[in-house]
């Protein structure tokens, strides 16, 4: 069934997207802000994510407790996340609660940034940093990206550090908000069982007064490099390696070909990495992904295994990515079938559709019906993959390892 996406841009620049499907029993709603770690200065490191927490800590008319209790009263499954490039606030509710959820979420996007709440939440963020410090593979990813992207902001840390979070002030956070949270830098999207007309008219009433201002982002491509680095940690029982090379951006047409290639080479099952490494018991995890960012991108190999096997595992993984065209037509068709099936299954739930609607708008300023995305995946040919590899030849690997001390 073809479902239409309604789009309206309010006079202040806020884009509103609505995809209603009366067959759903719930509705998803979310604000997608095109801001994240890559839009921070060094002093602000971690402030996007900290601000995301502060959105739940009170507005002009609601206290933090009011927000928590109201989310409870609505029976909402609500959450938020921050990445290098997006900050997303979202909720799923039953249709009767949709209107109230839209009102609450819209109010939350105008935070009070109360100084006492700010001080309290800072402690929570420091605990979150401590939590991830205990997860070695997270530590490796963060340090590998930071080194790989170098001076390019795509490698900025989402959580920030103990030092940057301890130092950041409430006023600096407010300045960041005033620089990034312009309605023209935000999309409000909804998907599922709700009334489009009411949603659009409520959006005009609730968000129409937000002040618009210019927002920009450095979307240059990063400079590729080829380095080898080792990180060491105490009490590590496992070792990990990340390999990065230049890849397609979220805007490059080659992303379809590279996503199919990723599935062939490095999906969690049935891929070259799986058969060569996991099936044989050499690695407990081995993957290849295309990590498409705003204006830039990379491809990534990740493996984890016992320290004594890491050399062998990395050699095999490098061998696989050095012969990327080494697949059969059946492998190609199978990979496409897996991707299409995932798109269909994820698209069946309001939250799945909501995420693709909002994120696609932030990256490409467009909306694509599921059927069109599926057609593009199905159309990927061997020649398309070969052409994508001419542009992104995967011969400039940087390698990062995490090993026991």
């Amino acid at each position, binding site marked *: 069934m073809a479902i239409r996406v309604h789009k309206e841009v309010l006079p202040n620049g806020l884009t509103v997207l609505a995809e209603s499907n009366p*067959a*759903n*029993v*719930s509705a998803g709603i979310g604000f997608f802000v095109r801001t994240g770690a890559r839009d921070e200065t060094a002093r602000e490191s971690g402030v996007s994510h900290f601000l995301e927490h502060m959105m*739940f800590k009170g507005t002009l008319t609601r206290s*933090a*407790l009011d927000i*928590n*209790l109201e*989310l*409870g*009263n*609505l*029976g*909402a*499954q609500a959450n938020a996340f921050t990445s290098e490039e997006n900050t997303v606030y979202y909720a*799923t*509710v*039953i249709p009767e609660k949709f209107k109230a959820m839209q009102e609450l979420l819209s109010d939350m996007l105008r935070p009070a940034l109360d100084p006492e709440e700010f001080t*309290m939440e800072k*402690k*929570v*963020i*420091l*605990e*979150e940093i*401590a*939590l991830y*410090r*205990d*997860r070695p*593979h997270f530590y490796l990813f963060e340090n590998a990206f930071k080194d790989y992207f170098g001076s390019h902001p795509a490698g900025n840390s989402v959580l920030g550090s103990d030092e940057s979070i301890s130092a950041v002030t409430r006023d600096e956070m407010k300045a960041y908000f005033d620089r990034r949270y312009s309605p023209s830098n935000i999309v409000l999207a909804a998907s599922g069982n709700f009334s489009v007309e009411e949603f659009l008219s409520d959006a005009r009433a609730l968000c129409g007064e937000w002040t618009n201002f210019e927002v920009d982002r450095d979307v240059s491509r990063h400079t590729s490099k080829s380095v080898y680095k080792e990180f060491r940690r*105490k*009490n590590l*029982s*496992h070792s990990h390696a990340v390999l990065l090379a230049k890849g397609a951006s979220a805007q490059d047409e080659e992303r379809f070909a590279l996503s199919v290639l990723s599935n062939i080479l490095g999906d969690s*099952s*049935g891929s070259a990495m799986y058969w060569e490494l*996991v*099936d*044989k*018991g*050499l*690695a*407990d995890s081995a993957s290849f992904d295309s990590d498409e960012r705003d204006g830039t991108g990379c491809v990534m190999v990740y493996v*984890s295994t*016992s320290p004594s096997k890491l050399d062998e595992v990395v050699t095999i993984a490098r061998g696989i990515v050095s012969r990327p065209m080494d697949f059969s037509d059946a492998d190609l*068709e*199978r*990979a496409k*079938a*897996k991707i*299409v*099936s*995932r798109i*269909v*299954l994820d698209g*069946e*739930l*309001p939250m799945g559709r909501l995420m693709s609607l909002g994120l696609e708008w932030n990256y490409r300023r467009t909306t694509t019906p599921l059927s069109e995305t599926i057609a593009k995946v199905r159309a990927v040919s061997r020649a398309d993959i070969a052409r994508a590899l001419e542009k992104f030849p995967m011969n400039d690997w940087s390698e990062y390892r995490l090993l026991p001390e």
Partner: protein
Amino acid sequence: MITTHQLANGLSILIEEMPHVESVSYDLLIPGGLVCDPEGKVGAGLILGDLIGRGAGPLSSRQLSEAFDDLGIRHGEGVGSDRYAMSGSLVSDSLTRALELVSYMVREPHLAEEEIPNIQSVLLQDIDSLSDNPARRSMVELSKRYYPAPFNRPSLGDADGIRATDRATVHGLWRKLFSPRQAILSIAGKVKASEVLKTVESLFGDWSGDDVKVPQFGAMPRHEYFHIDSDSSQMQIVFASPSVRFNQQGYYAGKLAVSVLGASMFGRLFVEVREKRGLCYSVYARHGSTIDYGTVTAYVGTTPERAQESLDVLLKELHGLQGTVSEDELERARTNLKASLIMGEESPGARAGSNAQDWWLIKRVRPLSEINAEIDRVTVSSVDEFLAAYPFKPCSILTLGKYALSVPKGLTGEG
């Protein structure tokens, strides 16, 4: 609409037609699981669970994997404490092929000896990497000490048990346990029940096997405070205490009481431990139960210097619930539980899973109206009655981190 049917060999079939969706999901549950692993070979079930996917019926390991992938079937085969489970989601016109592949895995797995060392190697690596996830490790360590044997077996198996398992062990387990007698096949999505029944009959009708005897759940061990030294940034604090069993008197009162305490952002633990004191990032309480037992678990992860205060506040909230739950709090918990049940109706995977779970526990599928009525019947006084019967003490507490904490006397120590 749900159609239920039992084949002559004992296999229960549950089919829910969901005309508004495009996909279909299946769940096959077979009693067994880690509790049925032979002594000294805990983890053999994990090897069996993996091995059935590495070649079955006319298909080699690779062919079987490719057969699933050709149709884009998202599938998983796993082993729980008391069961083997095979599940999958797919676009509906491939259901017959998906069930055929499942029947090969269950009825004709090759159980190839040469695959076993590869599986052992990955399972041993999984056990090794547990120390890289302290939150998960603390839960595993508490379960080992909290539940009676063999229900305390770790979900990742035991390293020695995995090493000691050979093909004969795995083959023996498969022969003994993979039987249709008490198995359940649950299907939900865009299907016609009559057509699916015919398919299932032809694929599984001549499957045979004996009754499977799963060990009885025994007496709970003595409750204690345990500490494990670990040089990590955060201290893990986990709590467990007995609660009401599934669908017994007070079951929904218990679920709602624990929701008032620890559900999501409106629960008392989130508000008191995180929001008001900033002691942690992650804190929660959960209610879990089977026909045999119910458990309330609670968790907080925090840096060592704030760990004692975190534990104190956690215990104060847990043990201060009785007599203090307000109508508003109960209503919020009720709204949330009902909303999550309605939203769960939407996904074929969730429906197939919850129908199977109902049948597993009580041999029927409860309509949503019946569950809602049960939830509506809960009052503040029935919550207090539940809390009088299950006061969250005695309890077991485990900490994992730089040093042990002080636990009030009298909380633990009773069997």
